[in-house]
């Protein structure tokens, strides 16, 4: 989103840009294929013949079975998009068009350019120093990484991690295999947290009235206030915190509140919802938390729960879920079945076997209807009438599945669903005998014993009433995230003494007197509970970079304790409980990353008898229908509630499904947008009461009609950081935190959205293969869906004609692939067997002489590529599309491991994002209810790599182990290699994107020393983490042994919670990757080009309910 960037191309309102670029005769007349051609790019594109482009695209798409598409522009054959993707690099790619940023760049670079000139005078290698320690720490070997176990506190529970440290500074995060919520994997937030530590925007020193101060000044002032308050047992003193999951902090807070009984504690977190806790009280009489266990869950029903992407247990749940999606090579499987009814299309929905996208009320109604079908007497006939009419088959099938899977099913409700729905889900799980099996109940982890916090509404009222004299806020940026109707920021100004403890100078920090620099979790001692109650000791990887203190030290100051460190405080919490073996257990806890046996035992409260009756009453009335739009709020998948706004890795991460970066947009459905005449990027005014927010729309396939989804957290102000995105918090009120209604009107204003989706065109290629388990089991050797689309080209007339969208039915997932019906009917099977003489599957990556995957050359594909010697292990990779949820953890992990720069929104628009690994999202079916697939794509390491022979200087070569190497120091930047790459996985450094690293020493600390930091003018790409391969190879050679399978884990493989990525030696018949490549579902991308990629994919297999297959148009909202 660029509406505050003074770019000459930011606002394009009319179709004029196409005409003004000199395109003759095209733009006005040939708008037939797409509604409008409002520019989606900020630079002019010359379209010579739009009609030809559109026709070609329509034809190529028609050849593809299943009508898959990637972006809206591709779906609608937008001529500007088609013209743009014809070129490898965006027009003007070599120029730095944006005036303002060029001026800025030259300003900041001016100094360093001058200096660079001077040092350039010495042609010899510059003199470098080698600086040893004075006293070397034990076990420290410069150059050798050390791993320390720690944990990152996240909403709802911590995730256990191993932090890789080089010379005393953390550079990379890995999962902790011994920790129950990590199981060796990580999420995007934990991967990106390293950059958060080294964030240049961090608050470094104490501020008093906006001028730098020191802690002792604050301590002095605080003492004065405390003494005053303690005259009345602490009256007038208030503390506002977020969720507290640290046992040490809980202990400290309890002690403080007991010492000052009149002091008040308030708790607020933007992402939090009390609905689940309320429901638990209602049903069980205790505020227990539900935990889900999926290994034994055959049927999973998600009611608005994005459990595979959100929440403290999602890493574990993805692992458990993926384990039940494995399909063996002989087509046997123990697959689960996932039903999802939700509002906003999510990553969980994309993996569903049956997926409904409905308005929030209807989602709730689905659960009521299913519960009724299961025999629960909860009424709600008025509420469920509509969904029963539209989706009775779905409800019956699901209820049937649930009944057949008693004790082996689970109903999961999204955190933000109303409490009655949570309560109903408990009753349903109880009825199905799931509680104790797939659902367990534990005590909440965020409780401070004997203390109940007030809400932020309470606090605001108290501030208004003048009851708060001193307020200390521990993080959270409440002025930004608090429900807008409370006007928290204004009331804050009236409190006499305010202190804000945070990592950055954000909008809350602007309103307080004292700003206290916080420490990052990687630099302090603390502890945290995971969602199951397990405690991890958080140990620092580095001394605090700035003058920060840990939150425990701050609480100690509040409690009047002097000269205690966080270390002492955390030890105080745990050593007494460890008994005689205290030291040994302490060190074991630090080593393992989790304190043994600290998980909570499951609670077994009984369901209260009156719960069902209460629900029946709650469901008696149907909610009022509104003519307005429904507005749904979600935490942002990258920024959460806004806390990661300054984290470049997360801002630039293309979000799942929309691939938006650097800003947000209002998600709107395809048909709704058509009705309103909107294109992606057009602004709408969302008005609720007296609040109006102007925000661009994003047309998201699958978004239900008349529903807008807003991601929170954008538009946050942090000093020194240019705000991106639109702040949607003003639309949230305390009463309607997650769902509200509003009026929506187009405004005519337009902004270019920064999304990576239209950077490539599928061009009719069958990139994602998917099918159902039944199809696979019907033909275990060669399932039809594996070869459909391979015999394209050559002008098959009937092929083109029959593959229109209508023929495939608009069924969600349950329908048999339309392609197969056609295949059987039109004899494609015969065609396949005639041309397709070599098997496409069961085919190791090392291709013996004579075999090939090109159906046009059965005798062996002609090639002018030389054979290169194969010596040693032959590296290869497979990615299981059935497991991948598109969560982006692998993308951030790759960025962290390989020193990949952040480029900023202007460059992403030009297609210059530098991610070596990208996740492509593909849609299939009907634009309002499509299936979604995610496909991670990185360098394929082709055995016949088209990029290698064309390098004039030999900068990209093939190693004897099968890796396509990239030697940065040889590269002169002709970009011919990228030109030749059919997968477009090569990224070119058009600009010196790593200059911030040279300028800011703190960013230098974040770089991985084992990987070169690239400068301007060189090409880069995935190299299978060759630094990791080298390290293990050297180690194995020194020990005179073979490399064990699984010993080398690439960064992406290591981060993946689904275990979708397998890497190893394809020559080893026992290796996991070899077995995956021999799987019938294995296929390569664009193998008919004879590139012989070493990275291949396992087709996605779904497990739909046979009862739902035959009905067409089932999933329409």
């Amino acid at each position: 989103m660029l509406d505050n960037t003074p770019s000459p191309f930011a606002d394009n309102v009319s179709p004029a840009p196409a005409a003004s670029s000199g395109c003759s005769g095209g733009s006005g007349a040939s708008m037939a294929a797409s509604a409008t051609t409002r520019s989606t790019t900020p630079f002019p594109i010359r379209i010579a013949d739009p009609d030809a482009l559109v026709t070609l695209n329509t034809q190529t798409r028609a050849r593809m079975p299943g009508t898959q598409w990637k972006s809206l522009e591709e779906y609608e054959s937008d001529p500007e998009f088609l013209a743009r993707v014809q070129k490898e690099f965006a027009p003007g790619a070599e120029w730095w068009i944006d005036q303002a940023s060029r001026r800025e760049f030259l300003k900041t670079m001016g100094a360093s350019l001058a200096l660079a000139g001077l040092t350039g005078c010495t042609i010899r290698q510059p003199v470098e120093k080698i600086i040893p320690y004075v006293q070397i720490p034990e076990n420290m070997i410069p150059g050798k990484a050390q791993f320390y176990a720690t944990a990152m506190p996240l909403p709802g529970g911590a995730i256990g991690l191993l932090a890789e440290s080089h010379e005393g500074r953390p550079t990379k995060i890995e999962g902790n295999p011994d920790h129950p919520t990590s199981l060796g994997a990580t999420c995007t937030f934990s991967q990106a947290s390293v950059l958060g530590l080294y964030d240049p925007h961090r608050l470094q020193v104490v501020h008093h009235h906006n001028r730098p101060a020191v802690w002792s000044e604050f301590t002095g002032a605080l003492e004065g206030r405390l003494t005053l308050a303690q005259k009345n047992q602490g009256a007038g003193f208030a503390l506002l915190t977020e969720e507290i999951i640290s046992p040490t902090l809980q202990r400290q807070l309890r002690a403080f509140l007991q010492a000052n009984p009149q002091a008040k504690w308030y708790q607020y977190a933007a992402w939090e919802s009390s609905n689940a806790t309320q429901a638990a009280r209602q049903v069980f009489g205790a505020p227990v938390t539900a935990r889900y266990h999926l290994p034994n869950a055959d049927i999973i029903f998600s009611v608005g729960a994005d459990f595979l992407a959100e929440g403290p247990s999602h890493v574990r749940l993805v692992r458990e879920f993926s384990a039940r999606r494995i399909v063996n090579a002989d087509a046997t499987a123990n697959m689960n079945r996932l039903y999802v009814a939700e509002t906003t299309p999510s990553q969980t929905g994309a993996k569903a076997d049956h997926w409904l996208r409905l308005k929030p009320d209807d989602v709730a109604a689905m659960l009521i209807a299913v519960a009724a079908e299961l025999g629960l007497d909860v009424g709600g006939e008025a509420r469920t009438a509509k969904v029963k009419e539209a989706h009775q088959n779905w409800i019956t099938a699901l209820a049937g599945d649930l009944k057949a899977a008693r004790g082996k099913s689970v109903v999961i409700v999204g955190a933000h669903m109303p409490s009655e729905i949570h309560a109903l889900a408990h009753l349903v799980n109880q009825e199905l005998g799931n509680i104790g099996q797939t659902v367990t109940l534990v005590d909440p982890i965020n409780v401070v014993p004997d203390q109940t916090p007030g809400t932020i509404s309470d606090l605001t009222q108290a501030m208004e009433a003048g009851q708060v004299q001193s307020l200390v806020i521990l993080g959270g940026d409440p002025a930004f995230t608090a429900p807008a109707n409370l006007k928290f920021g204004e009331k804050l100004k009236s409190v006499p003494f305010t202190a804000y403890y945070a990592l950055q100078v954000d909008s809350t920090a602007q309103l307080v007197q004292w700003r206290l620099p916080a420490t990052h979790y990687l630099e302090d001692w603390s502890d945290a509970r995971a969602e199951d109650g397990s405690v991890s000791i958080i140990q620092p990887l580095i001394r605090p970079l700035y003058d920060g203190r840990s939150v425990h030290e701050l609480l100690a100051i509040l409690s009047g304790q002097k000269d205690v460190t966080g270390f002492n405080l955390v030890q105080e919490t745990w050593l007494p409980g460890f008994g005689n073996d205290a030291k040994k257990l302490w060190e074991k806890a630090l080593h393992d990353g989790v304190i043994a046996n600290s998980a909570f035992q499951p609670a077994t409260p009984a369901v209260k008898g009156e719960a069902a009756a209460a629900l029946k009453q709650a469901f008696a009335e149907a909610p009022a229908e509104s003519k307005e739009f429904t507005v749904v709020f979600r935490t942002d998948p990258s920024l959460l509630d806004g806390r990661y706004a300054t984290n470049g890795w997360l801002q630039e991460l293309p979000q799942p499904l929309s691939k938006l970066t650097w800003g947000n947009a209002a998600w709107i459905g395809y048909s709704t947008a058509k009705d309103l005449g909107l294109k992606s990027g057009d602004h709408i005014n969302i008005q609720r009461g007296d609040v109006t927010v102007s925000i661009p729309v994003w047309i998201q396939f699958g978004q239900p009609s008349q529903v807008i989804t807003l991601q929170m957290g954008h538009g946050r102000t942090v000093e020194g950081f240019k705000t991106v995105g639109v702040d949607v918090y003003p639309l949230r009120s305390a009463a309607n935190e997650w769902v509200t209604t509003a009026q929506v009107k187009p405004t005519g204003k337009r902004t270019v959205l920064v999304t990576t989706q239209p950077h490539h065109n599928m061009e009719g290629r069958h990139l994602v293969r998917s099918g159902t388990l039944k199809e696979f089991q019907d033909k275990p050797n060669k399932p039809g869906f594996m070869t459909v689309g391979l015999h394209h080209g050559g002008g098959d007339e009937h092929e083109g004609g029959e593959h229109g969208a209508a023929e495939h039915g608009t069924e969600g997932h349950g329908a048999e692939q339309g392609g197969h019906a056609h295949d059987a009917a039109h004899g494609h099977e015969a065609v396949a067997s005639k041309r397709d003489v070599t098997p496409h599957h069961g085919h190791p990556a090392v291709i013996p002489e004579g075999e090939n995957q090109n159906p046009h050359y059965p005798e062996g594909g002609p090639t002018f590529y030389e054979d290169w010697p194969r010596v040693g292990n032959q590296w290869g990779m497979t990615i299981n599309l059935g497991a991948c949820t598109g969560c982006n953890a692998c993308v951030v992990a790759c960025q962290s491991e390989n020193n990949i720069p952040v480029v900023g929104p202007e460059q992403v628009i030009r297609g210059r994002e530098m991610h070596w690994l990208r996740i492509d999202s593909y849609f299939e079916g009907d634009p309002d209810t499509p299936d979604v697939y995610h496909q991670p794509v990185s360098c394929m390491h082709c055995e016949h790599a088209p990029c290698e022979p064309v390098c004039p200087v030999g900068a990209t070569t093939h190693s004897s182990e099968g890796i396509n190497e990239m030697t940065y120091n040889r590269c002169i930047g002709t970009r011919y290699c990228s030109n030749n790459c059919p997968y477009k996985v090569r990224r070119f450094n058009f600009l010196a994107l790593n200059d911030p690293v040279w300028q800011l020493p703190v960013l230098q600390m974040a770089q991985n020393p084992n990987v070169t930091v690239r400068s301007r003018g060189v090409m880069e790409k995935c190299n299978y983490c060759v630094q990791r391969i080298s390290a293990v190879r050297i180690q194995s050679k020194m020990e005179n042994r073979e490399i064990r399978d699984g010993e080398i884990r690439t960064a992406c493989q290591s981060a993946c919670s689904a275990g979708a990525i397998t890497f190893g030696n394809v020559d080893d018949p026992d290796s996991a990757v070899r077995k995956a490549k021999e799987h019938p579902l294995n296929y390569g991308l664009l193998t008919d080009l004879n590139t012989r990629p070493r990275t291949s994919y396992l087709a996605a297999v779904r497990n739909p309910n046979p009862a739902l297959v035959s009905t067409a148009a089932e999933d329409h909202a």
Partner: protein
Amino acid sequence: MNTIARVGIFGAIFLVTGLFSAAWGWVRSPYMTEVRVVKPQPVPFSHAHHVGDIGIDCRYCHTSVEREAFAGMPATEVCMNCHSQLFSDSAMLAPVRESYRDGKPLQWTRVHDAPDYVFFHHGIHVSKGVACERCHGRVDKMPLMWRENTLHMSWCLECHWNPGDNVRPPSDVFVMGWKPGPGTPSQSELVAAGHIRSQTNCSVCHR
């Protein structure tokens, strides 16, 4: 005019050849490669004395050379192991004592410095039998440290193409002035025993 033109063209060939030769020679000259050029150091540390005269093993200071990429530079406390008692008042060693006292490390000038885009691993070379003196020269005869070899890629490749010529039994790697004796295994035996398979793929060193 014709004469000038002809002489000019004829001479240009020599000129161009001369320029190229000069450039070729320049790049390989000690000025550019800094072979045998002594660089200033904070303390005039003498390997000839410590290794040659006293016989301290390389690994006493360069501790991680057998297993890790970086050979290891001795921390000030390693120097002080001896020099807290020997020559403890010497003016020449004042910077060492100051470093230990103040906690400020000594800033040595790097002599063997491969460019940043080269990732060299000491451990694999040492453990396979590449001797210290093979690359660093007769360190026990250097009163001040200098670079014995150019460290150019062509020089590395000479050995990588023919490792057998350049290895010795791993137990003799730290010996200065070693000569093969009657009991020394042959080159092919060394290569076989060490499972030596030297790699010349680009990504082995450049990543």
